[in-house]
């Protein structure tokens, strides 16, 4: 028995599930202190996801609150098939998407793009603040796909399911987002 227990704890995913099990069960019993602890455990990471996608502090806070309310109201549906973090993250991402749907998120049509010279020489090094501003400056559709793929670790099939687009649209949007970032980060030579 202890051998099996040790084996489980070697796997980080299973370790997270094991460590959080008691807390989750207390939240299911609607114990306020447990709910607060669960919130504090994941709040910063989830807030970052919201802010990365929405680029607005007020919007990010509203979505974070709605997402956690969904988390606690649907916690009885969580069956430990994924880590608590992954499950909560999916709810947060869905709430961000719903927020954008209300705003009618726009994916850049290829024929609307200005014809710009491709960044022939991408910079060899990057600066944090410039990269951050460049990501913030991306059009919504590009930023969303880039965030989900590069920052949140979803693959294009998962992104296509989340956003209701095709896999090839997801790949195209990601490819274009990267190109635009490189152009924005390439210093202008005179």
């Amino acid at each position, binding site marked *: 028995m202890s051998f099996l227990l040790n084996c489980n704890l070697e796997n980080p995913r299973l370790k997270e599930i094991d460590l959080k099990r008691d807390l989750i069960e207390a939240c299911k019993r609607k114990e306020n202190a447990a709910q607060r602890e669960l919130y504090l455990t994941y709040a910063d990471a989830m*807030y970052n996801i919201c802010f990365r996608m929405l680029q607005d502090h007020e919007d990010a806070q509203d979505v974070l609150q709605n997402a956690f309310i969904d988390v606690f109201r649907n916690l009885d549906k969580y069956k430990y098939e994924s880590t608590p973090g992954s499950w909560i993250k999916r709810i947060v991402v869905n709430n961000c998407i719903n927020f954008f749907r209300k705003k009618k998120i726009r994916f850049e049509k290829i024929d609307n793009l200005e014809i710009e010279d491709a960044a022939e020489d991408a910079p060899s090094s990057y600066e944090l603040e410039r990269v951050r501003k460049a990501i913030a400056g991306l059009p919504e559709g590009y930023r969303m796909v880039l965030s989900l793929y590069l920052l949140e670790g979803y693959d294009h099939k998962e992104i296509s399911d989340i956003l209701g687009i095709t896999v*090839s649209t997801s790949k195209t949007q990601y490819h274009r987002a990267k190109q635009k970032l490189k152009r924005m980060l390439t210093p202008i030579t005179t």
Partner: protein
Amino acid sequence: MKQLDPLEQFIVNHREKLFPEKAPPAAWDKISAKLDTPAVPRNPYRTAFWILVAAILAIVSYWYYAQTIDREPQQTMEYAAIPDFDEVQSYYRLAVDQKMEELYKVHDDATIDDDLSLLDQMEAELRKEYQEAQGPFREMILSALIDNYQTRLALLQKVLEEVKAKELSESIYHEM
């Protein structure tokens, strides 16, 4: 695992520093207040009512269909059976993804994206029609979906061949 380019690697490596935001302290109080207010309970009778309405509509629709089908002239149509469509679809999706990866490494032109977007739109329309279609029409739509994938693959292959041919002729020119 796909190899990341320098920009991607930078973003992934500096993820925490790029976005070091903290959740606002007041957020929990607002969440807690709403959790104390129970959600509006769903009326189970309302759900049962709509299930009953849907069942009646289904019965009426079937009765109407049964009445009208006898009046239509018998037509024999043969459509190719599409056994294991899911498997076929998976095969084409993988082939298209691989071809796109190969192409994007050597080709950076928006033209092909227009064609791919058009094929995406056609695929979406076909899938929508499939949901509403019945009987042999469904198989027709599945055939059209496979044609869509084949067209996509052929397009990507054609562009890839043209790009490679152009590169080859340019390299020959430089060697002269």
